[in-house]
């Protein structure tokens, strides 16, 4: 099995690791770094459960090889809270009822954070389109939209 060493910054912390060249970024996060907040579901880039930010852009980490992330800055759900304090977006997800089983939530949060980073005042259609790649089978879509709107109002205006 061919291995390669990569250096990445994950949630602000520099990490050096040896990864198999065919392993995905999702494999590296979950199996090598034991950051299991990022979830594994469809593995074909359709469900969004494995969404992370790579250099500020959202990526389905199941579709990106770990070696491709060499040198990148990565944000996962574990990096959203600071010093045990939930971010306004995380808190809004709880306040607005945007979380049921929670399995899609890490991906939803990271995708929503990226959306807000690029658009501090998104409209409802912009939120729905921005999160269209994140499936929620519990059907919290309206609550997720409310949470993103609420975080935008509280944190970005």
């Amino acid at each position, binding site marked *: 099995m061919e291995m390669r060493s990569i250096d990445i910054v994950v949630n602000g912390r520099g990490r050096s690791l040896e990864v198999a060249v065919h392993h995905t970024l999702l494999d590296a996060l979950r199996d090598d770094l034991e950051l299991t907040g990022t979830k594994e579901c469809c593995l074909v880039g359709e469900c969004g459960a494995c969404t992370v930010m790579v250099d500020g852009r959202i990526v389905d980490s199941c579709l990106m090889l770990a070696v491709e992330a060499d040198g990148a800055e990565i944000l996962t759900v574990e990096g959203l809270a600071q010093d045990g304090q939930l971010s306004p977006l995380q808190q809004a997800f709880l306040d607005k009822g945007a979380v049921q*089983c929670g399995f899609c939530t890490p991906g939803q949060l990271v995708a929503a954070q990226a959306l807000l980073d690029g658009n501090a005042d998104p409209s409802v259609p912009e939120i729905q389109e921005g999160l269209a790649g994140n499936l929620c089978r519990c059907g919290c879509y309206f609550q997720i939209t409310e949470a993103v709107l609420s975080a935008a109002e509280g944190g970005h205006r």
Partner: protein
Amino acid sequence: MTARLVGTSPNRVGGFGRVSGLQEYVADIRIPDVLEGKLVTLDCARARIISIDTSEAEQVPGVRLVMTAADLPQPMPRFGPQLEDRPVIAVGETKYHGEPVAIVAAETKDAAAEGARLVHVEYEELPAVFTVAAALDPAAPLVQDPSLRPNDKFASTNVLREHRVGWGDVDAGKADLVIENSYSFPIVTHFAIEPHAFMAAPDGNGIAVWSSIQHPNWLQKILAKLLGLPLSKVRVYAPDPGGGFGGKQHTKYEPLVAYAALKAGRPVRLILSLEESFQAARRAACEIGVRTGFTADGKIVFQDVKADYLIGAYTDIADRVVGKGSYPAAGPYNVPAVRILARSILSHTLPSTAFRGFGNPQVNWAVESNLDEGARALGIDRLEIRLRNLARKGDAFIPFDTPADGDWDQAVRRAADLIGWDQPLAPGHGRGIAVGIKSGPTTGLSYSTVRLLGDGSVVVLAGTSDMGQGARTILAQIAAEELGAPLDSIAIVMGDTAIVPYDQQTSASRSTVLMGNSVLMACRSIQSQIRTMAARLHEVDESDISVERGVVKLPDRQLTILEVLKPGLGRLGGELTGNGEMRKDAEPNHPLSGAPAFFEFNCTAIEAEVDEGTGDITILRHVTVSDVGKAINPLQVRMQDEGAAIQGLGHTLMEHYIFDESGRIRNLGAIDYRIPTSMDLPLELRSETIENEDGPGPYGSKGMSEGALLCVAPAVAAAVRDACGAVIRDLPLSPERVWQALQERGDQVATGRKGR
């Protein structure tokens, strides 16, 4: 005094873990020395296994175990919640696409995958049946070996069982109009975002098993019986599932993983892919024939329903789904004569199981749609015909059963108001309205233990699974309310059969009612102990003290529970413990072995628009009104109600399995099997509740998590027909199907305009 918590919507208990990424689902749990499991399956549904060569797989570095039927006890152990017909692993013959013939366990996922690829199976594909018609053909191959079905009159057919229920004389009914149609409902799957996940580890002289299961105690019983172990030596850990919807109720591959762990002498885990989850659980397809008799003024004279449910190769809980789901097929109406015949039809497809709605959405789709046909033919408003026939509270609408237990007409009128039933429609728009009913739990047994600790904080031990419905929050609200403790001082412990008392199951929207009552009883037991304590401390007669919702009322003053508890426990401290036992026993003479604890009732109203060029449906407004008795947590009620509504839109508009001639699922996985995304929603979704505090649960609550899914399909189809005249009796209402129906509508438009 504590503020009342019941009827408020505090943040979800367990919410912090879910938004921070710290919540551990089964796949997130790491135990030392664990081997990665991978299933070996064949590329067709039914095949005779000629030989399995594991030698090359065993040579793969890191592979520690390749287990086939030959490595398991003989005869092959079988299990199932209803009939013990499912083998731990395929023996002799596979019966559906995806049935495992071997499991490989290796040090790494890569090695397990490579090993699985190198297990060489020689097999011969055999004739198989994938549809109701094929399964019922007299020349059809039998799905189940008749020798496994002794003393069974259907053993030489693919009918597993028949369920007949009825009353009155359908054939004698004098109807002014009879409407007869056939409807179909496809196979759909749960698609929980968490694929099923299992892990097992030898544990002294027993075994520990982790599963994303909804019913840990039922799994424990099945494993103990298969492995010949006492219950105490089978420890099931059931972390909160990442979505269940019924698909995770019953035992699937846990026995296989347990045998593998025992054989390997090491922990083994099996994390299914989404595709493998698609091959592990699904809803039964159904073909329904309905004949409805009406009087000229729109009263239903009779309902004659025949429903053939296409279940899989093994029973799982499917036959119970058929029996219980078809039982209220005549709907929440007063119908003098009813005849229902439902059949479980075996096929060479993956086992069907429980899925939100539990067999009701299939027959509801047909019966509610047929009612609309009657209304149109009679020129009666479609809302009015429902109100004319709807059972009122107390009506014995199913003669030998729980009478109507809610003011259902309130829900119907409210939904009609919210959709603006009497308002003029914009051109090209259409409206539909439908009602749904489902029997709640017919038996149940939920134990709980509540511990009031020395500082007034509380631990609740309850065996419910919180798979997203929010059971932790509801139970915490009940305990906080009754014991006067702050919500954030309540710990809810679930999912460990070695610690948490027995709970029968998390299904049928039961937990608020059954486990809720159990926790309420446990709290009341503690209140009684507090009362005794207060009497002792204050030298008052016990009968002069009452404890209510966290407040201790003495003749001359009121105290908090903590103000009694601390001096009452004294210097050594300690705690008070209360036990709850909520039991709903079986009734042997009842057709369902028990009358339901409550009915779930929902009315759904839809306004839709159809793009006649593409057949694409836009849901402009979706109104759902559920009779919930009392919303203990209104936000969670809304989330469950909307979630059920959106899941219902999935099977209504887009979801279905497609099989090829070998019984392989052609649209396996997330690319080709679509579920609603944030772009597929109604433009407006309105969820409301009827709360008359008339349910059997704490504070008058009823179960409510399935209602809003029951009648989405008939309401949408009715709106589509109203909008454009397209008549569709087969789900899903995909654009191509709508477009096709538009080409065929002919004179149906005229008929469609007769009524409303």
